[in-house]
């Protein structure tokens, strides 16, 4: 069953803060992460299914999957001085691959790919105690052509149906966003007004409208990673978002959101 749904920023400066970052802003996002952790403890999930966009870490140009599932026994990665490893809920991961393919989604799966920091940063702050196994779900966000927002929404809807039919208690998390432009001349000028308009739609329970956004619009708004949120929205339908925080830094719109189910 699907017992919870959250979206979290994964800005690496929240984990390892250089002097360029406002410490109080970072701590305010940490407070929102702590609230997610408390909710996860209360929801007692058997697994966390996390949708994140790889930063050209697990998948380089040897293979660029649109949608992928980590379906081994464990996954691990590194980021700077951080080393991390998580057990995978293999029965759930395998069910997602098998039933996803049965439903017409040609999923890529891996038992041997590094786990990107997009998964790790939110989990560093929100993993409940005792920890629960993970099912990492990848959506291609950085290597065009990415899956369309509509395809992400449809995949999320199928994923939600698969999770609801399971006996395990599953929390679905999306990692990413909001507006940021790493590596471009827009890095210091994200589209914060665009983010706020999206958050207003989400708090009104109008998440399905995000499925109609074009790839070009996501790129222009610095929101290519929103595909992870749109996948989650397919699963939660018209649930209304509870925005824990929206903290615009000089380069990044940091949001933490729950969709109470």
């Amino acid at each position, binding site marked *: 069953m699907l017992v919870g749904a959250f979206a979290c920023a994964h800005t690496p400066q929240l984990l390892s803060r250089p002097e360029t970052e406002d*410490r109080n802003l970072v701590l305010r996002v940490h407070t929102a992460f702590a609230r997610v952790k408390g909710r996860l403890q209360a929801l007692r999930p058997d697994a966390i299914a996390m949708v994140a966009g790889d*930063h050209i870490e697990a998948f380089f140009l040897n293979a660029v999957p649109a949608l992928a599932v980590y379906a081994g026994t464990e996954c691990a990665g590194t980021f700077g001085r951080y080393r991390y490893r998580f057990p995978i809920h293999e029965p759930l991961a395998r069910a997602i691959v098998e039933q996803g393919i049965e439903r017409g989604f040609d999923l890529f799966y891996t038992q041997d790919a590094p786990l990107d920091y997009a998964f790790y940063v939110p989990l560093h702050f929100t993993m409940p105690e005792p920890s629960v196994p993970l099912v990492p779900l990848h959506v291609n966000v950085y290597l065009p052509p990415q899956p369309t927002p509509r395809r992400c929404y449809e995949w999320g809807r199928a994923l939600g149906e698969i999770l609801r039919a399971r006996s395990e208690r599953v929390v679905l998390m999306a990692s990413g966003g909001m507006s940021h432009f*790493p*590596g471009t001349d827009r890095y210091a000028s994200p589209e914060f007004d665009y983010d706020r308009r999206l958050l207003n739609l989400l708090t009104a329970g109008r998440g399905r409208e995000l499925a109609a956004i074009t790839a*070009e619009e996501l790129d222009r708004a*610095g929101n290519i990673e929103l595909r992870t949120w749109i996948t989650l929205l397919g699963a939660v339908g018209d649930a209304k978002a509870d925005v824990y925080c929206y903290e615009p830094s000089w380069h990044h719109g940091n949001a933490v959101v729950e969709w109470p189910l």
Partner: protein
Amino acid sequence: MAAVNALHYRFPPGSAYRLNRCLFAIKSDDAFRARFLADARAAIDEMELDDTDSAALLRGDRDALVARGAHPYLVFMADLRLRMEREAMTFEDF
């Protein structure tokens, strides 16, 4: 084509494969990054880059690298990883 070319993140052309592979290695391969820091020219030669790409990489010229087809995120993170080791940047780790 104008609208497509205006995108921040574009399809990585095959002509830039070696350049992107080199940036990926600087970002994600600790041993290669160490070799690059010790002798950038020799490390670049391992990756068989042409003279134009090599010069842009040695200058750290982001705009030239992106114009050659380098992925902006790879340029960004490769540069950050090199600066973290060269400049002993200080971080507060949580």
